[in-house]
């Protein structure tokens, strides 16, 4: 009798593991009708509602009324009629350099300035918003919450009984569910943007733009069982395959792209983003965004920001194409950013001849950009400061001092006066005692 019971154990284990595997294969699918919020979800919904206030209080919202109006206008053309009391579609721009957008279950849709600056036209913006609107309309947030909850409960029961194997399948299925919902948002979003009159080919372009990595800090990850989103390339392929069906019956050339108007409205956002990218130490991304504006005969501010980006690069080269860096190097860059300060990272590069040569080249280019800014607007005092700081790094203290004096004279109430006065004093000291090698921090 006891022997027969023992023989059953592997079968029970097999059935439990198979059950966990079946749950793991469950496909994520949105629900586009009315969906009631359960009692145990009220806390989550309270947090969701509080997010709007949190972003406002912390000053994360972007101030530009024109770009906010554009995002809101396009978003509203893409949003369906709310199916529930708790859903109210509203669109916000966040001042954040990360190219990202997200939707919350109560219809709040956010897009970061970092993504707005990266996009090239209105149709690409529509593609982003259409995708996010589908997350809210399909109750993806609530359904994910429920799915994770159920799987966690199942894991508590199955985990110990299956010696952890069940947990593995369930954890895998959480990510699989998320990827399914992302694919659904892409598929339905594409249809929505076509219905609103936008060219769906721009969704593919938008996904390509998201894959760019000018800083060399995003190692390529093949979409695995542990990814929340499908691979960008796979998403682009899926969109390409869906376009003929979505545009059936539409005359070619009738779908809108809206590049010039978008560029006019987004230009101030690009300049703000470039400033933020430089402040966050992402000068390569900043340079990539500002370069086209400078090439088109940009404003004094654009040239000045190009100079600032070059100066912030310091000993880092501009990566001309991602293929130069291997995945391992990208991972190393990412780790270095997390653990080492900005000046420490520069110091590492300055130990090599190549690093010193790169810094020299970047500083010379920075001076050129600052001078171009001054040629457009001779009253731009900050350009004198930039030239002074770049020339000091280049080992030309007298000229550097002269430029800093020009800056201090032109803006006697400059908020960073205290730093510049100290820099001028250091230069004076250098001239008296002979030049000293400059540190890594540009």
């Amino acid at each position: 009798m006891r022997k027969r019971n023992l023989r059953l154990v592997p079968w029970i284990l097999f059935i439990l593991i198979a059950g966990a595997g079946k749950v793991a294969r469950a496909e994520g699918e949105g629900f586009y009708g009315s969906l009631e919020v359960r009692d145990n979800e009220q806390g989550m919904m309270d947090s969701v509602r509080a997010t709007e206030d949190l972003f406002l209080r912390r000053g994360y919202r972007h101030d530009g009324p024109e770009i906010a109006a554009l995002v809101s206008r396009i978003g509203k053309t893409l949003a369906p009629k709310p199916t529930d009391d708790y859903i109210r579609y509203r669109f916000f721009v966040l001042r954040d350099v990360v190219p990202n957008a997200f939707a919350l279950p109560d219809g709040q849709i956010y897009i970061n300035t970092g993504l707005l600056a990266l996009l090239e036209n209105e149709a690409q913006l529509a593609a982003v918003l259409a995708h996010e609107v589908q997350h809210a309309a399909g109750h993806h947030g609530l359904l994910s919450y429920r799915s994770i909850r159920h799987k966690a409960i199942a894991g508590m029961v199955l985990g110990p009984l299956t010696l952890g194997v069940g947990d593995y399948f369930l954890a895998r299925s959480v990510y699989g569910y998320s990827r399914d919902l992302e694919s659904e948002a892409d598929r339905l979003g594409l249809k929505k943007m076509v219905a609103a009159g936008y060219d769906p080919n721009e969704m593919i372009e938008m996904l390509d733009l998201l894959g760019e990595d000018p800083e060399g800090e995003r190692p390529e990850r093949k979409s695995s069982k542990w990814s929340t989103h499908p691979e960008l390339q796979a998403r682009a392929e899926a969109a390409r395959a869906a376009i003929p069906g979505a545009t059936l019956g539409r005359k070619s050339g009738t779908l809108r792209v809206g590049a010039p108007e978008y560029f006019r409205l987004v230009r101030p956002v690009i300049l703000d983003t470039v400033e933020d990218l430089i402040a966050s130490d992402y000068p390569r991304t900043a340079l990539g965004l500002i370069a086209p504006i400078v090439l088109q005969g940009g404003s004094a501010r654009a040239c000045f920001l190009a100079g600032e980006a070059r100066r912030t690069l310091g000993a880092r080269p501009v990566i001309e194409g991602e293929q130069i860096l291997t995945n391992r190097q990208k991972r190393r860059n990412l780790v270095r950013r997390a653990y080492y300060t900005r000046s420490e990272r520069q110091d590492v590069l300055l130990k090599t001849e190549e690093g010193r040569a790169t810094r020299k080249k970047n500083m010379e280019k920075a001076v050129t950009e600052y001078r171009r800014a001054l040629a457009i607007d001779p009253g731009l005092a900050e350009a004198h400061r930039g030239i002074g700081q770049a020339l000091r790094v280049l080992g030309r203290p007298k000229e550097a001092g002269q430029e800093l004096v020009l800056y201090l004279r032109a803006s006697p109430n400059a908020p960073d006066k205290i730093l510049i006065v100290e820099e001028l004093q250091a230069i004076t000291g250098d001239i008296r005692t002979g030049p000293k090698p400059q540190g890594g921090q540009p």
Partner: protein
Amino acid sequence: MNPTIRRSLTRATAVVLVAGLAIPALFARASMTPGFRSKASRPMRLALLPPHAEFIKAKVVMTDQMTAETRALEAEAARAIQDQVRALGYEVRVVDEAALMKNAALRQLVVKVNDRYSEEWGRMMHYPRGVKQKRYTLGAEVVKLCAFLKVDGLIVSRQVAFANSKGRAFMSGMMNLGAPSQTSYLYLDVAVLNGRNGQVEGFFRGYEPSSLGQLTKKPVKVTVQACAKAFSRYPASTVAEMVEDDSDTATASSKDDGEVGDDAAIADFEALFNKGSGAPAKAAGSPRN
């Protein structure tokens, strides 16, 4: 009593006593630059930026962010820090959310400082002793904000509250065969930034074991206790320690002799520039023209 047993008991008592003395030290952590300790680079007029809090609630099956509850924690932290700093004899200007709403320029400056601080905070949490070695500098953003607010330095704070729900605590107890479950807690990190150069001069942490009920119903009590622990090592405005590395002290005393204004610095540079390098010029500490 057997002498061996007595010796063992004495040793055990000593260990318990030492551990008892060490435990409060674990709940408060501080790292300061030598200049901060010696008062040379310690800001005396401070501006307190709105604190940022994060509240994580661990339930039986998953964790939730409690965004709505963070507001109370942030408000209490602002009050508690302000009281502590004033009690230590420093001047404090509180930058509240209402001020940020009204003034777009101030809002932008504060957001930039907070972004920059968040970047360094990750590194500081990983290696807090780096503060003592003057490893962390936030640069021009801090200088600009301090000039705008007319203060010598900034206080930036971050709070993390982690709360176990009753169900979670019960489940953990069951799974761990009665062993105590992970405690709920709140920790408050406070950093002092120098308005002259953006240097992180001091980093203080207060840790307060708590419960979900206390964190949601009595945020005042928990925050005040965590804050008191964080400030337990913050020197009073009158205290100046003697430190071995006195480079900051030397710099500060030369500045105290006669603060060099921009006019003096310009004149000094121009005198040298016009006469050619190596020519004698006005001393760095000469008064304004």
